[in-house]
């Protein structure tokens, strides 16, 4: 532990010099936290004045500081601070692959550094370079150099269940980390009730970037703060996913269509014909007669092999989505009369063997096997399946040509689930920490947003360090597998790899990387060459599907208008109502129940607490 010693020495030198400066000049030296006047400015010239600590990279600051102590030297830029701390700069600056660091937040880096403890989930996706670990890696070193924040993980867990257990134990032991990740559901409701979380409103108002944070959130109205705002105060930072992250496209086997001379289906009727043709001709790779119409699984609306484009296009709403009915009131799509038509439609598919016979017991993730195993030629899954199910399908059957298309239209037009990028969990700070922590936290978030969401500053949307995340082999960029910078970042920005502020950040980055195609081949830097090299076409397939998804998301998406923690009625009756619904719809689809069972269900649903929930939801809607 050499670092603290150096810091302390620096600090003593800083204070001595600051005191000397204060006696010499009346104007400078007061560590007042005015946003325009960085308080650390007094410490910085002192630090740079220590000859041993200054590498040659900061030639301008030193003479100014030593020669004229009264004049305030310009604070070091982020890049200079990185160099000073001996940290590698990202990319290959000498080969035209440059990153632009945004200006540092006021008062940063803090000296002495502020230690913030946190927690997180460490799955098999979190990989460190040789010699690094969760508390000492390129990000934590960068945070210390640029922000003066020392990140320390109080505890980590392997998965969500374990995380919840550990969180509850930490609450009981009154030993919470300073910040926490993804607090939602019960943890959020109970935590707010017990007053565990700090109010970060002032820090947010003072230090969140207007352009990169506040203006972006403002575009989305109530949604960003649906869970974090309590009585007008912000009790944490929201978690924001990508736009259209879980919107479905219709993936279809182009080679199968060509083989049978069929066109891409535009309506549900045509979809039925194509699916039937695929099945009749038994194009799948499984045993004889096992070809399916579409991939399907036990939950109607889910993230793989989902039925939401079919149900949405028939009913115009979705189960457990609260949408406006004819009277302008919120109503759960579960009891919409047109839902019955959707179930009848699916029952017909099931009867004719177009849905997997075992769908009722097939978990969502297992629907991917149907695609990877080439048992179906159509499925409704987000754009990101290009490299997963569709990619593995191609490995098992090289002739597989998956294409992403718009979902087919039904009686209600083209309607599918709109995936809300604003998650139902927040990133809180522990109550009683003090303003310095909230300020530092918000400043770091705000800076990271500006850096990581601006395609002009971060080429390709990816932070790459030579020797850590990539190597140069024979002049070509070669990624080091599984090592990703964002995985090391605590907090809501980047976080486990894809948190941020603007839901459209990935879209912007993608447009930028696509524009690199216009750079002449001999002018491209190694990273651009690597990104644009796509022999298997996986990336092009992914990008086309993503662009399609983003372009139709607003127009075709069905939005769930209820975005708040569960109401009392949902807590009391929700589980029972949902299991009743699950039984009804699987019963109808598998043909074990007549379609009239749906009408009966609607009556029961209202009686068994549904009416109360509806009232609560509408009360919430009015009171917003």
């Amino acid at each position, binding site marked *: 532990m050499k670092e603290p010693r150096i810091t302390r020495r620096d600090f003593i030198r800083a204070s001595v010099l600051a005191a000397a400066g204060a006696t010499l000049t009346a104007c400078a030296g007061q560590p007042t936290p005015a946003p325009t006047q960085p308080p650390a400015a007094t410490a910085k010239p002192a630090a740079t004045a220590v000859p041993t600590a200054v590498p040659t990279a900061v030639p301008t600051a030193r003479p100014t500081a030593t020669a004229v102590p009264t004049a305030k030297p310009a604070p070091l830029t982020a890049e200079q601070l990185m160099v000073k701390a001996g940290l590698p700069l990202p990319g290959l600056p000498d080969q035209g692959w440059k990153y632009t660091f945004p200006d540092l937040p006021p008062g940063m880096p803090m000296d002495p550094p502020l230690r913030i403890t946190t927690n997180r989930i460490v799955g098999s996706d979190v990989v460190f370079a040789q010699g690094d670990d969760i508390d000492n890696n390129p990000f934590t070193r960068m945070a210390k150099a640029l922000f003066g924040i020392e990140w320390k993980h109080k505890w*980590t867990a*392997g998965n969500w269940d374990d995380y919840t257990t*550990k969180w509850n134990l930490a609450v009981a032991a009154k030993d919470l980390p300073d910040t926490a990740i993804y607090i939602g559901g019960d943890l959020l409701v109970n935590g707010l009730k017990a007053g565990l979380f700090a109010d970060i409103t002032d820090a947010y108002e003072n230090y969140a970037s207007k352009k990169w944070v506040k203006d972006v959130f403002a575009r989305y109205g109530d949604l960003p703060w649906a869970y974090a705002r309590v009585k007008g105060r912000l009790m944490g930072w929201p978690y924001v996913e990508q736009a259209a*992250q879980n919107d479905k496209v219709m993936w279809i086997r182009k080679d199968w269509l060509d083989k049978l001379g069929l066109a891409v289906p535009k309506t549900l009727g045509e979809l039925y014909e194509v699916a039937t043709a695929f099945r009749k001709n038994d194009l799948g790779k499984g045993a004889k007669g096992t070809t399916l119409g579409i991939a399907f699984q036990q939950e109607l609306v889910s993230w793989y092999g989902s039925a939401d484009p079919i149900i949405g296009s028939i009913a115009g709403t979705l189960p457990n989505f609260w949408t406006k009915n004819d009277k302008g009131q919120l109503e759960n799509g579960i009891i919409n009369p047109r839902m019955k038509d959707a179930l009848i439609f699916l029952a017909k598919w099931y009867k004719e063997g177009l849905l997997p016979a075992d769908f009722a017991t097939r978990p969502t993730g297992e629907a991917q*096997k149907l695609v990877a195993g080439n048992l179906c030629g159509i499925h409704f899954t987000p754009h*990101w399946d290009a490299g997963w199910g569709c990619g593995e399908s191609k*490995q098992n059957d090289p002739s597989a040509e998956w294409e992403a298309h718009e979902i087919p239209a039904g009686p209600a037009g083209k309607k599918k689930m709109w995936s809300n990028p604003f998650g139902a969990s927040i990133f809180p700070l522990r109550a009683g920490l003090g303003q310095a922590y909230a300020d530092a936290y918000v400043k770091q978030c705000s800076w990271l947003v500006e850096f990581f969401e601006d395609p002009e500053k971060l080429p390709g949307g990816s932070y790459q360090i030579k020797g850590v995340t990539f190597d140069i082999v024979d002049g070509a960029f070669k990624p080091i597998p599984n090592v990703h910078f964002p995985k090391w970042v605590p907090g809501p920005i980047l976080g486990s790899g*894809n948190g941020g502020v603007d839901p459209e950040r990935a879209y912007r980055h993608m447009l930028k990387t696509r524009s690199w195609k216009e750079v002449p081949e001999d002018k491209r830097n190694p990273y651009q060459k690597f990104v644009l090299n796509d022999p298997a076409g996986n990336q092009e397939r992914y990008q086309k599907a993503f662009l399609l998804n983003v372009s139709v998301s607003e127009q075709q998406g069905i939005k769930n208008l209820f975005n708040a923690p569960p109401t009392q009625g949902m807590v009391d009756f929700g589980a029972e109502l949902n299991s009743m619904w699950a039984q009804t719809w699987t019963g109808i689809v598998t043909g074990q129940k007549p379609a009239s069972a749906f009408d009966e269900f609607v009556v029961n649903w209202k009686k068994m607490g549904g009416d109360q929930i509806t009232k609560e939801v509408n009360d919430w809607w009015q009171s917003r």
Partner: protein
Amino acid sequence: MVEGKSWRNRMFDGVNYVILTLIAFLCLVPIIHVLAVSLSSRAPAMGGFVTFWPIGFTWENYIKVVESVAFYRAFLVSVERTLLGTLINLLIIVLTAYPFSRSPHEFKGRTFLLYVFMFAMLFNGGLIPTFLNVRNLGLIDTLWALVLPGAVQIWSIFLLMNFFRGIPKEIEESAIIDGASHWQLLYHIYLPLSTPVLATLCLFAAVGHWNAWFDGVIYMTKMDNVPLQTFLRTIVIQLDMTRMNLDPKDLVLVSNRSVRAAQIFVTMLPILVVYPFLQRYFVTGIRLGAVKG
């Protein structure tokens, strides 16, 4: 009485053998399937084509497992805790069971202490108080947190106590006449006569330690310190996209069924290897009892 077996008897035996073989095979099926998947290449495993024979045979998955530092570290923690934990468990079981097997006449207060143990067996402190206690003792993040809270296995103590009491008094008395102390009695008379039950208790303790995951979750703050079964939960647990959005790029990584299968198989291996050796003692134990009977 071999000739006395009627055809009905033989028929009955035959049917029994067939049924029991089938049941034994049913137990083996999942293991064979996991083994087959672990030796298959990625794409067929993902497609669900592999049943009992690997497709696209490869050692690659095992190489990945062995190369994974995190897995290796967790494996080591598990081995350490199993060895140390079993040793401590058995030591305490033997040293507690012996005095308890004495008569109340010899061991004053035995009955009261027995009730104390019985109480502790039936009621425990509950999750949070136990956690707080372990935490206040400063055991968090040490191997001792996995070993000490479960060190006294009361049920096993009672089992061994009852076994000790079943050993004929005459043997003990003969040793006492020869001038044996309690330590000598325990070491020369009781322990050699109880190898079968000790082997069983040893297996219980070892399997218990090897399979335990929950203490790893609550007492370890770093993934570096967790035992294998806790570590496995990071990879075996089902993909759940409803609770958090994974980066699509990670799906490929997280969902690698063949590597997961290899990890699971490596985890099963030590117990599979240890079991036949301990089973030898079970058989001896049965024979021992039969001769004496």
